[in-house]
């Protein structure tokens, strides 16, 4: 595991006067699941298309599996993708579509088609043609096609679009499995932040063509963690009461003297009562922390920092 598989350096993409990507530099490391978050028109799909060679950057450089320039196109065979809508021939069945892509990519062995259909839950579609598939079924088939070449990097643009709740869970579990069991690196874009939160290990926040933040799951959890902020002049007494009366050591004394209590956030009244009964005089007592959405909004400059509740 480990090692850089994709690196973009200062990619800019312009359509006429409109700058869709502006000096975008990101690095994707092997074996991780990257969630690409951005509002509509933020540049998510455009960025993915630059990596896949479906669009040529106006300026900047892309390195894929350590190769640059003309050598990149060979390396792209190590990438599987589903961009916007899957490449399907509508008058073919799911298996025939997979067979078509298998021929196109020169992959031997027909059993892979059945295995992939089983993996994405389309093994029972039989002779049903793709034109009669629901949007969710088409998306699943698109994911199967993306996995056909057993790629090292899978790029999925809004893969859960149109999926029912069960389908969403299945695709999420599949993405996790691909990463954990097969060591695949996944770059997945979605508007569904809670959904991304359940599978991504890293987040790239993009807005108006610029990368606003690259943050790991651990850092995001830290930022979005809810806690009780207690301000007092008697920190030692507060710590003693928290440990002895409330039975928690899950708190942190901050440099400014305030205490952040990460437990008992749902029992604010009880905490306040116990502190009062034990003579701890507080100057401030409030629930702090971000929701995912609020954090995202603040990251793209559309909101404030911590929100007191």
């Amino acid at each position, binding site marked *: 595991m480990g090692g850089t598989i994709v690196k973009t350096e200062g990619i800019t993409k312009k359509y006429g006067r409109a700058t869709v990507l502006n000096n975008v530099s990101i690095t994707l490391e092997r074996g991780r699941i990257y969630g690409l978050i951005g509002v509509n028109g933020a540049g998510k799909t455009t960025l993915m298309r630059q990596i896949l060679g*479906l669009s040529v950057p106006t300026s900047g450089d892309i390195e894929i599996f350590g190769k640059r320039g003309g050598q990149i196109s060979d390396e*792209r065979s190590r990438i599987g993708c589903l961009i916007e809508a*899957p490449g399907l*021939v509508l008058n073919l069945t799911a298996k025939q579509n997979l067979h*078509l*892509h298998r021929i*196109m990519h020169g992959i031997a062995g027909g059993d892979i088609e059945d295995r992939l259909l089983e993996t994405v839950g389309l093994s029972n579609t039989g002779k049903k043609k793709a034109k009669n598939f629901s949007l969710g079924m088409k998306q699943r088939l698109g994911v199967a096609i993306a996995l056909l070449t057993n790629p090292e990097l899978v790029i999925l643009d809004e893969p859960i679009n149109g999926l029912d709740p069960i389908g969403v869970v299945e695709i999420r579990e599949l993405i996790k499995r691909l990463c954990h069991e097969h060591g695949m690196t996944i770059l997945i874009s979605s508007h569904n932040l809670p959904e991304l939160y359940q599978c991504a290990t890293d987040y790239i926040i993009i807005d108006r063509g610029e990368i606003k933040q690259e943050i790991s799951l651990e850092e995001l959890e830290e930022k979005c963690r809810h806690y009780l902020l207690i301000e007092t002049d008697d920190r030692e007494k507060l710590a003693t009461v928290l440990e002895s009366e409330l039975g928690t050591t899950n708190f942190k004394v901050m440099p400014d003297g305030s205490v952040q209590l990460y437990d008992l956030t749902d029992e604010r009244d009880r905490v306040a009562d116990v502190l009062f009964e034990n003579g701890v005089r507080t100057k401030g007592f409030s629930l702090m922390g971000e929701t995912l959405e609020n954090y995202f909004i603040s990251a793209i400059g559309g909101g404030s920092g911590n929100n007191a509740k």
Partner: protein
Amino acid sequence: MINLIKADFYKINRSAIYRVLFIISAICAITTTVVSHNVYSGNMDTATAASTAMLTDVVILNLINCVLAGQLICGDFENKLIQSALTGTSGRFTLVCSKMAVYTALIGIMSVPYALCAIICPALCSGYCAPFSASAYLKMLFDSTTADFSMNMILKYTAISVIMVLVYAAQSGFVFLMGFIIKNKPLIVTALGFVINTIIGMGSSLIAGNSAADKVLEWTPYGLDIYSMGNDTGTFTLIKVSLICIVFIALFTGLSYAAFRNAEIK
């Protein structure tokens, strides 16, 4: 490239539109042959036969070739198969070359009914005339009336039929190019291609006779002499026409790549 060609034929084999186009070509080829024989036999007058002029290869194959370009190129942009091919192992040049190979092969397949009629029908039933100019296959039928049916003639007609595939591929080269420029609008490519092809055909007829224009057209796949290839055509002419067509096919493949090389693919 072989994988892309195989994939295209896998898809084509399962698509109804290509079968329908082949059936149309077959019906038109048989009708044209029957009309040619009946005009020669005196069972049909030339005025009645004129109403079937639209069924000759020069019209029908040009139309079919435009539909083929729309389906083969724009259809794949629409269903995103080109995107899949590019994100796989194929570069853009490989993709354009494979499409031209499949396109030429499909033109060949669609020409088979006309070629078979021209080669086989003289053996089954003699006496044909060429009521319409600018049809290589009718010219072959007409020539068979005045020549003895022989193995040499079969070989020559087969060679001319193969060369006519190159002629049609070269003539449709700009429709192929338009496919890569317009991308996912097959109907526009088909309609525009047919209109432009027809205008070029009419234009080359109009300027025929002008010695300077004839000299220029002689070196293109649009020269009227191409349609008069028959039993009396020499080997040099056959080779010359073939080479001109191959150069034009290569030229349009190159132009298509140039147009597609840095193109955005939605």
